[in-house]
């Protein structure tokens, strides 16, 4: 089985890590691709329930809104306040305290939603950050895919470790794949052979893997960092460098703001105006009040200055007593640094916001290519199993169909459940969406156990294609506004692109299922030796 030849050993590692990573990894890649467009998806889902941005409300006073939200909130929770407003959502105040529990920092408090136009309190929720800030029913659609991508439907820390392992395994796959396949310019230009399904699948896997190598490497590296940093590494570094005091570490990372000794309390409204003016009319992303109402009070305003090639972020730190600007600071630390810039770059690269919508669109396409790459890898493994009735062969077939067909079907099911459940219940519909998503995966996997991969994919793609194509018609149940009404509104005309994306995805799945059902590929090149399709010539022919 084994020799001392590194390349053969790496090939074995590539194959087995790929097979083990497939279920976890495909779930992460696919949900990540959808989550790249979470802002657009959220605005599409919220179109009928839109609340005006506080910045655009004439006469809006942040101090009045803060006073209304803070009424009835215990004094100890009022020291730390996060204020933010996502597009279309209410203005949200999260009054909280930091607690250390089981070696990790936990934020517990009360979230208060306020309508910035009427200053009416719309909702209050108690609990830890995730629980208190849970979205309303219309906002559940995009947050479902974001949470699926970050936590994989698991508890917070366990989910982060699982996605971190998926990122590490992908990085390992990229490294071993590059060392085994050795992508050269000649190989990058080589057209896939269409002699048989097995050849085509093998060549496509190598070709897509070679072209997407920098992207998958980048996403794996940044994703692994983002998952492991919070769950494992920051607590570890806090133990070593801060004697276990995570609060002290986070204060160092965010940067201490030195303020005056005054006991006065500054008004927030002038600070808001000042931050907007300094950023040439930028959009306020968040306001963080620290030690508010006590000694050392300070306020940080995060403002995004719009630009065609991605927003420029500004962070303005103000003295909470005098209202004077202390400094413009970066996101990490009090002054620009290599480490802070590195983490900022990592986040922008991972979320596809480096050059705005251009990189987002590119990340979407490349994310789908990575999903295709993983599925083709599974298809190669399926084709090599000669004992089609063995439990291992059935398991791999089931996994291939469960993920290849189950993920689009699960997305459509979650979308349908969101629309229907939102129209019945105004609360959190995430649990219902989770059940629908998992049932779709299980149903798709079941079709792979009994039949072939081809027939399983054809059936699930037809179901998913139809469900996705008619989702825009069903969406008004959840979003509260029909597509024609939205398209005729000048500010919502862009939602036609989201509707079109669902229809195009549905039609693409129907066309793909039709081609697959007819027996694709149809051309044959008998002169091509079957061994050539694997990097080490160890593959054997088998039905797909």
């Amino acid at each position: 089985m084994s020799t001392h030849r590194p390349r053969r050993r790496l090939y074995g590692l590539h194959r087995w890590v790929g097979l083990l990573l497939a279920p976890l990894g495909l779930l992460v890649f696919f949900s990540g691709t959808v989550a790249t467009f979470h802002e657009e998806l959220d605005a599409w889902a919220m179109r009928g329930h839109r609340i005006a941005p506080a910045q655009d409300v004439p006469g809006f006073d942040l101090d009045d809104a803060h006073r209304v939200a803070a009424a009835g909130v215990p004094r100890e929770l009022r020291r730390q306040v996060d204020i933010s407003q996502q597009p279309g959502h209410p203005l949200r105040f999260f009054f909280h305290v930091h607690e250390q529990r089981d070696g990790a920092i936990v934020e517990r408090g009360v979230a208060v939603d306020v309508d910035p136009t009427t200053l009416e309190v719309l909702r209050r929720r108690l609990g830890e950050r995730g629980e208190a800030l849970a979205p309303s029913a219309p906002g559940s659609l995009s947050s479902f895919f974001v949470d699926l991508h970050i936590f994989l439907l698991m508890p917070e820390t366990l989910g982060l470790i699982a996605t971190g392992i998926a990122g590490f395994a992908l990085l390992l796959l990229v490294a071993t794949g590059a060392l085994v396949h050795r992508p050269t310019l000649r190989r990058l230009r080589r057209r896939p052979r269409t002699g048989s399904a097995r050849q085509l699948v093998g060549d496509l896997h190598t070709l897509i893997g070679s072209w997407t190598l920098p992207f998958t490497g980048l996403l794996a590296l940044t994703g692994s960092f983002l998952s492991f940093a919070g769950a494992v590494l920051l607590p570890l570094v806090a133990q070593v460098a801060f004697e276990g005091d995570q609060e002290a570490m986070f204060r160092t990372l965010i940067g201490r703001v030195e303020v005056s000794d005054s006991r006065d309390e500054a008004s927030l409204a002038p600070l808001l105006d000042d931050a907007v003016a300094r950023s040439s009319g930028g959009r306020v992303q968040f306001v963080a009040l620290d030690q508010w109402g006590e000694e050392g009070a300070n306020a940080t305003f995060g403002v995004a200055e719009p630009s065609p090639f991605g927003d420029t972020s500004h962070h303005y730190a103000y003295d909470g007593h005098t209202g004077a600007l202390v400094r413009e600071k970066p996101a990490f630390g009090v002054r620009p640094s290599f480490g802070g810039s590195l983490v900022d770059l990592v986040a922008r690269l991972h979320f596809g916001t480096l050059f705005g919508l251009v990189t987002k669109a590119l990340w979407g396409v490349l994310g789908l290519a990575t999903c295709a790459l993983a599925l083709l890898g599974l298809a190669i493994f399926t084709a090599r199993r000669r004992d089609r009735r063995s439990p291992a062969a059935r398991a791999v077939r089931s996994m291939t169909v469960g993920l290849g067909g189950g993920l689009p079907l699960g997305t459509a099911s979650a979308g349908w459940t969101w629309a229907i459940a939102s129209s019945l219940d105004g609360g959190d519909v995430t649990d219902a969406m989770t059940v629908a998503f998992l049932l779709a995966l299980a149903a798709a996997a079941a079709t792979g156990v009994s039949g072939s991969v081809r027939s399983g994919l054809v059936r699930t793609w037809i179901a998913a294609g139809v469900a996705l194509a008619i989702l825009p018609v069903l969406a008004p149940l959840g979003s509260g506004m029909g597509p024609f009404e939205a398209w005729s509104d000048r500010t919502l005309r862009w939602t036609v692109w989201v509707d079109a994306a669902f229809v195009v995805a549905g039609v693409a799945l129907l066309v793909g299922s039709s081609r697959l059902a007819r027996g694709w590929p149809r051309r044959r090149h008998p002169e091509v030796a079957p061994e050539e399709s694997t990097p080490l010539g160890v593959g054997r022919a088998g039905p797909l």
Partner: protein
Amino acid sequence: MTRRLPGAPRWSRARVAGYALLSLASAFVFASIVTAGATKWLPAGRAGIDHIMVPIVAFPVVWVVFALVLYAARRRGVAWAAVAGLTAIHAALVAHGWAS
């Protein structure tokens, strides 16, 4: 076709899988210790955060490099000794920090 080098040991599939798991898990432990230890010798920079941020960002790369070296190196003994030695230096830095 599969060929074995003269004199190379014949390993069962279970042994290869076990060795791969051992390499990946050991690499995780070694990389974690190196990340923690690197906070002791890396410069803190202008904002005083570089020594925390840089090792954490580099952690996945260190883990993958260690894993590949431990698993696929021709000279396994040398590879394990090199990685364990690097880890021991960083562990000593962490221990020195705690002691002082």
